[in-house]
């Protein structure tokens, strides 16, 4: 699987230039305006784009067909795509944390600013990957729909963290939970969605013909 990840990272390096310009510009803007959320949103959007880009390139150069002739199983190929998505998400999270700490933020601010978008990104990937593997370009059109779903999730989590009274909100009658629990719970659910998505993708890919 290392070779597959290396391939995706090397491919990503080629097109990262334009993204880096955006990230640097928005980071500078965030830095001087003291609002890390702006750069975080851009970084996380890039994070969502990159795994999809690798799938597009695989199709464009017919690597998706060629890789099946190499000593890697279909399951390993799919696993590498999800691991790549998680690695990029982790990198985006680290970037945001560094940016926030640099601006004097704390852990709670990092969670509030960053996790909703990360969760939205993971949910988009979880929903879109099986569709792209199943329908190719047509499946890609659904990303727009899934981004809408993710946007809704981000919005709801944003409202929860913004108006949750700082530390505590009521999620159901008589039950009080902290916003951290909501966010971490949502993160766990998104990871679970990613796991289910991986299983579905494996099944789709096992049957896929080229």
């Amino acid at each position, binding site marked *: 699987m*290392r*070779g*597959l990840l*290396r*391939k995706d990272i*090397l*491919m990503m390096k*080629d*097109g990262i230039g334009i993204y880096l310009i955006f990230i640097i510009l928005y980071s500078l803007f965030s830095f001087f305006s003291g609002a890390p959320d702006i750069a975080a949103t851009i970084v996380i959007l890039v994070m969502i784009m990159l795994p999809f880009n690798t799938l597009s*390139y*695989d199709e464009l*150069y*017919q*690597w998706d*067909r*060629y890789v*099946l*002739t*190499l*000593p*890697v*199983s*279909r399951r390993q190929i799919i696993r590498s795509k999800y691991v790549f998505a998680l690695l990029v998400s982790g990198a985006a999270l680290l970037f945001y944390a560094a940016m926030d700490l640099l601006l004097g933020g704390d852990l709670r601010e990092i969670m509030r600013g960053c996790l909703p978008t990360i969760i939205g990104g993971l949910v988009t990937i979880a929903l879109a990957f099986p569709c792209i593997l199943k329908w190719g370009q047509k499946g890609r059109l659904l990303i727009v729909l899934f981004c809408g779903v993710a946007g809704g999730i981000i919005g709801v989590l944003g409202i929860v963290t913004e108006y949750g009274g700082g530390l505590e909100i009521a999620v159901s009658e008589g039950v009080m939970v902290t916003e951290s629990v909501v966010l971490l719970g949502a993160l766990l659910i998104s990871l679970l969605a990613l796991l289910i998505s991986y299983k579905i993708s494996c099944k789709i890919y096992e*049957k896929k*013909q*080229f």
Partner: protein
Amino acid sequence: MTYALELQHVKKNFEHFTLQDISLALPRGYILGLIGENGAGKSTIIKLLLNLLHSDGGQIEVLGIPAETFSAQRNEQIGVVMDERGLPEMLNLRQVNRIMEDLYSSWDSDTFYSLTTRFGLPEKSKIKTYSRGMKMKLSIAVALSHNAQLLILDEATNGLDPVVRDELLDLFLEFMQDENHAILMASHITSDLEKVCDHIAYIHEGRIELNMEKDQLLEDYAVFKGSEEQLAEIPEDAVLRVRRHQFGLEALVKRNEVHAAAALERPTLESIMLFFNKGTRQ
């Protein structure tokens, strides 16, 4: 005799095309050429062998393992070239080497760099800057750098100039110095196959029309050129296909069954393919 690959009564149905009852075997130590017009089913057979397509019947074994069963060990021993595409074109040769080093346990960087140097491929340029011939050479260098025993080549010499094609054919013959090795070559450049193949299988509209040793094929069959009257003198069973044109006719005949006095020419794989494709039975 051990086979590098074997297909028995293989079928594959598509909406507008059916591959019917394909039986083929490639013994180790041989080169099998798969000829046929575009859309005849050559690439479908190769995709079935590589498990890129799933068959609708029959058995397929590659290096003794069913094609539909994934085996990393088997795939280590197969080198595949499918036209010039497959490798991401934003990579350069060094990056390809690093990726393949991770993927193949038997990857041999020295062999890879010696082949790419022999082919004159620049190390630092991206693949997208390569010509078609260079991309093909790179694919072939990859296929030959992990101690493969079986090469599967789908239109590997298509669109290349005669010098490059000749160079690659020499390389394939070098690969065949080891008698455990085998090559399956699908192409419609029949002259290339005529140079290197031991066996020829001709596919037409999803069926195997001919499957025999190349030398035997070219010796047993002959091209007769003449008139309708002269053709009538040849036993009916000896005539396989006839092509009529403005100035007479040509027939593909069984050499041994035709009277010695008849003017016969040695066929080429291309002429045989044209007879089966364009000719009529009588």
